[in-house]
């Protein structure tokens, strides 16, 4: 039997009975790798480069696992859009504590709008009560997918969450904004995106790494989900940022102002 929460009619399942969380994980170049641009400037070198889960997504997974440990969440689904090898990142999420996974397999370059549409399709299959994503991925730094998904689903959103709690059958999300903290109350289902300070992710323990091997990963193609990956952007050239020139020491404030005005030309 599913009881209804009178206060929040949109919450069709109450927490005490069932709360399904979906987390997004993206395969990216590991944060410690020194990025190299390909000689033909078509992109960055990814051959023989160490790949990892986007660190903000690790935070998202950790938050979901903590909700489950607090007996708030009852099921965690990890989902990714990416090549076959992105299964490694799903396994990491499963080893951290996700229950099962959904892999949308594609070798195509995906934009945030593609990923948001694919996530929407998965949400329609899975009906999660809460979707937690990283606030951005460290490869393209777009910071759009969570917001787009919320818009497509017409769900409330709490981007850059630094604290999340369940209150009165809804969510209370603390966000880091310029000049302070903002606290939002929202109903479920909702989308939140994880900021760096939300939590500190755990290591998957060895027994959990072994258990993850047996957890289920459902695979879909983009066609099966009815999403067309229309390319709206074309990358013309990828280049290294300009090399920084060495700084210089100044003797006085006057000299500094003079240099800022006449050499750097940043003040008039």
């Amino acid at each position: 039997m599913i009881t209804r929460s009178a206060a929040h009619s949109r919450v069709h399942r109450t927490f005490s009975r069932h709360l399904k969380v979906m987390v997004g994980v993206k395969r990216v170049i590991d944060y410690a790798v020194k990025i190299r641009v390909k000689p033909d400037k078509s992109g960055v070198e990814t051959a023989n480069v160490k790949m990892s889960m986007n660190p903000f997504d690790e935070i998202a997974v950790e938050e979901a696992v903590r909700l489950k440990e607090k007996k708030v969440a009852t099921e965690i689904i990890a989902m990714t859009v990416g090549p076959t090898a992105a299964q490694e990142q799903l396994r990491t999420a499963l080893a951290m504590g996700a229950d099962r996974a959904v892999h949308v397999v594609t070798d195509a370059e995906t934009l945030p709008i593609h990923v948001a549409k694919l996530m929407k399709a998965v949400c329609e299959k899975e009906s999660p009560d809460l979707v937690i994503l990283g606030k951005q991925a460290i490869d393209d730094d777009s910071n759009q997918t969570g917001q787009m998904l919320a818009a497509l689903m017409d769900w409330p959103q709490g981007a850059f969450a630094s604290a999340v709690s369940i209150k009165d059958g809804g969510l209370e999300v603390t966000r880091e904004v310029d000049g302070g903290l903002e606290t939002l109350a929202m109903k479920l289902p909702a989308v939140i995106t994880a900021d760096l300070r939300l939590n500190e992710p755990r290591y998957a323990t060895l027994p959990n790494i072994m258990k993850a091997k047996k957890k289920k990963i459902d695979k879909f193609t983009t066609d099966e989900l009815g999403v067309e990956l229309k390319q709206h952007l074309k990358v013309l050239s990828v280049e290294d940022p300009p090399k920084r020139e060495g700084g210089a020491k100044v003797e006085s404030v006057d000299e500094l102002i003079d240099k800022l005005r006449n050499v750097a030309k940043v003040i008039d």
Partner: protein
Amino acid sequence: MMHAIKPARKLGVFRRALAHRLLSSSPLAGAEEAVSVDIFNPSPEHAALREMVRSFVNAEVEPQALQYNREERFNHALFRRAGELGLLGVTVDPEYGGAGMDATAACIVHEELSASDPAFCLSYLAHSQLFVNNLARNGSADQRARWLPAACRGEAIGGMGMSEPGAGTDVLAMRTTAKKQPDGGFLLNGAKMWITNGCVDDTQLGDLYLVYARTAGADVKPSKAVSLFLVEKGMRGFSLGQRIKDKCGMRASPTAELVFEDVHLPAENLVGAEGGATVCMMRNLEIERVVLAAMAVGIARRSLEVMNSYASERKAFGQPLSSFGQIQRHVAESYAEYMAGKTYLYQTSNALDLESAGNRLDTDGVKLFCTTMGKNVADRAVQVLGGYGYIGDYVVERLWRDSKLLEIGGGTLESHHKNMVRELAGVQRMP
């Protein structure tokens, strides 16, 4: 100046890297993947294990290594933490609290730990291989159920006693005896020397030991005269002879002499058959040699990374050190030897069945090659760093001191020569 890995929480490292990333523009990642067979990480679980241990090492092992080694202290809290992460029972059946993985998984953990703190890794080895894996392979179901779960969780710390003050390489000349008693138990007398984890500080014993002792008289040939026993802290007559201090290296790993005076061992503490311990010993020494080789590979990798980055950053005569031919030789030879050793290591571990015995040739060969390789690479790293290489802050002097033990413990180089040549006598065609 070179940058040694500095104490930092994983997220601290990440935050800094991220700040750096956010400052520079981030090009879009391409989509192609390199698919290749990786003998160092033969399955996704091996790769995940290596990844997890590396994160643990960066965040929790590296920051304590210098201090604990300087003070000759064993980091018991860190040992328990390894238990929480499931690292103490890598090769043990999940039924008894382990992860049910293979020899290669054990090598991965040893390589990664040793790249930061070989001494902590040596104590880890004595516990997880010499005690835990030894009991998992040679003990009965009752014995495994009784002692392994606590050992896998890190609540009990274990070790293994084979060497004696008067018997090392010639181990079957041991003089510790266990006399059968009318009640079926045994009376243990003698002493064991050089026992890693024989104590946890200057005065206290560890918890559980597998001890080899003679159970037959001089008329029985040595290979049929030795039995294996489980000896527990608190048994009457079992005491700490001495803690062996002031070692050249491996200073955060406690080493002790254990003394047994009329220790009464119940029959349930006999592991395997009476007089049948030689095969237990040989089986366990095989994996011991392989993980000791893995430790040497870890030392070599770290030393190579340190010398490689130092050589490109440090300038002399207006040029980076890496522009000088003699330095190039140190770096290039180290890389080639490291890769040769690492490949031999994982080739051997991937083929090693932990339930089997009689894998002499390559378990001896890999330890023979890798331990001297590790010592040489650490030595070159000290040389490339000059004066900086000779002090603790730059890590390689510690690795250099630690590396020497690997040529002695678990069998000396000379014992490998002897055993390999005996094996090779029957081989006509080389692989």
